[in-house]
């Protein structure tokens, strides 16, 4: 099972996609897709949230930083939210986040929001396959690595020794 992992060997570019699925709809749909034996691209790694409303845009940025080439958000159809309106919150954040990413030079297609209800296993399949193709065409998202300094030699024991002097006041 390890062979078919994307990027496992230095083959052609295989995108890595992180998917945040709402537990009630899209995640269940993904289960359904599984039990219905619907094969879809192995490029997606799913992170389960109780509700798309839990999705903090930080997670998306974090995923990109940690090497994701695309991020897929899945939630219940508007009006179907198990928590009434979590998916509306998700939609608002998504809209603004998309514009932020545009400003940061990240292509639209790399972030996607889909409403997929618990019964739409086939849409999980088609969405994932479709997005994987799109991003395969885009190529890898290569962010500037964040420079990380070597830790200070004696950083470890730098618990600053108390200074034998009275305070300022």
């Amino acid at each position, binding site marked *: 099972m390890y062979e078919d992992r*994307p990027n496992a060997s230095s083959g052609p570019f295989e995108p890595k996609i992180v998917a945040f699925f709402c537990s009630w709809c899209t995640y269940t749909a993904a289960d359904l897709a599984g039990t219905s034996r619907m094969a879809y691209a192995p490029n997606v790694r799913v*992170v389960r949230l*109780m*509700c798309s409303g*839990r999705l903090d845009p930080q*997670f998306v940025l974090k995923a990109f930083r*940690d090497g994701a080439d695309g991020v897929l958000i899945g939630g219940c159809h508007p009006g179907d939210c198990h*928590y009434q309106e*979590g998916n509306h919150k998700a939609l608002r954040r998504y809209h603004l986040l998309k514009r932020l990413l545009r400003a940061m030079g990240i292509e639209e297609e790399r972030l996607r929001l889909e409403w997929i209800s*618990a019964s739409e296993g086939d849409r999980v399949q088609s969405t994932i396959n479709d997005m994987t193709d799109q991003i395969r065409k885009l190529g890898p998202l290569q962010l500037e690595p964040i420079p990380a300094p070597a830790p200070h030699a004696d950083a470890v024991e730098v618990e600053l020794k108390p200074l034998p002097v009275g305070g300022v006041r």
Partner: protein
Amino acid sequence: MGRVTITIDGHPIEVEEGSFVLTATRQLGIDIPTLCHFPYMQPYAACRLCVVEARDGKGWSKIVTACNYPAWEGLIIRTDSDRVLDGRRLNLEMLMSRCARLPVLEELAAQLGIDKPRWGYGEDTCVLCGLCVRVCDEIVGAHAICFTNRGIFREVSTPFNLDSDSCILCGACAMVCPTGHIQMEEVVRPEIGHPDLQLGPNAAISVPTRQAVPNVPRINPDYCIHFKTGGCGICSSVCEKDAINYEDEDAFDEIEVGSVVLATGFKGFDARRIAPYGYGRYPNVYTSLEIEQMINASSPTGGQIVLRDGFVPKSIGIIHCVGSRDEHTNRYCSRVCCMYSLKLAHLVKERTGGEVFNFYIDMRTPGKGYEEFYDKLLKEGVHFIRGRAAEVTEWAMTPEEEGRLVIRAEDTLIGTVRRIPVDMVILSVGLEPQADAEEVGRLFNISCSKEGWFLERHPKLAPVSTFTDGIFLAGACQGPKDIPDSVAQGGAAAAEALVLADRGYVELEPITAYIDEDTCSGCKTCVAMCPFSAISFKVETGKSETNEALCKGCGTCVAACPSGAAQQHLFTDEEIYEEIEGVLTYV
């Protein structure tokens, strides 16, 4: 008024003083002919056929009309003396020579031994009994009909012989008319396939459906005369329990419950959607449900299988999988059709003795005794043709097809297309989710399958539970199933509900949100986020806090919390960050 004793033809009887003699004679089962009498209406004594002889036993005697002669102590009545009979004959003879030969009069004449009136017959069909006028006044209260003119010109009519606006088309006058002088035209034609009730005429007061719960009649204000005119009220006057309450109205009651079992059932497939089968176009194409109604002993046809014209069909075609296993309508198998089709086939054959043809794709008879039943039918000589029927048509190609319905179907077993002429076609319609399943689902915060069936929490492990705690499923609302399965599931759902009730407390998933006092700045962002009002701002502390009992654990507030003070058990930011790193680092 006290009670008095009178004697009729030698039989003493105690009756209410002043009550009419006719009532007493009817109690005694003594037949006295009447034309103008109708219970619940004031006596009128117009036809004079109910004449009897009254005596006091002291020599006084008199011919009176029984319908309106009051009873008094010691009254003696003779109903069959020659004197009485002569009087009746004369009165009847006069009526006869006024009217044309009317069945009702002929009958009476025969009884009284009159062969024909000595003054010859007239043309009129009205005996001026006034029943119609009175029923319209006294009972219906529409006051639409009246007598016009005088003497020999007297007749029944509407004012000025015009169509009356006050007539409510109730048909009461026609009903009471003894001679058929008044006919209803095209008002309520008892017709099979009535919108309200698949079969039979609708009564203003009736039990809505068979097996209705509670199984009691209800008044349909659209048809009830009382609700139109304020008149009638016969039902309340005859109901000894006096259960009739015209004031009753629809009301909504709010009931607090701990759990809900959804058993909203299914909707029969609308056969019109498959045009080639001609439902709604050809009168003798029925749906299985209509036949189910017709075949019921209490149906207007008394359980007889008849065509629209009332004849009994000689050959019947039953088309299976109508709206099931079909690309264009529903892909799923409705699961119950095969068996109920077989049942109908059996009954129809039994009741009609005709030829029954089943057109099926596959015969699916799982379960106890089902396959055996199928065998039984094979032995009974019911025909089974394996192949989906292509169409039902009136277009005849051979003389024997003339005027009949022809079912075209491919017989896949012998590999030819066959044309089977039948008198009646029964469409075995499939099961579909209720039209409003989506809204209902939303109402209870549960989701529907693609087809619209309510989604169970887990097909194997939690078949009657839903994603919302305390909401359970029973019966066809969750998917096509037959009665035994539905009953079983209903039991299971009830048990699940009882478990909650018995336990008396609810277990929360440990995914609730919480707010760290120290880092909460009291910006209140989270408060507006919560759809369950589980977060409140405490003025004393200047911080927000969650009520974990109300919190459903969606985490929306956590995502919105600007300072990370709000977190969610099992879904903290750190945990999710770790997860993201995890899923991305194994390559």
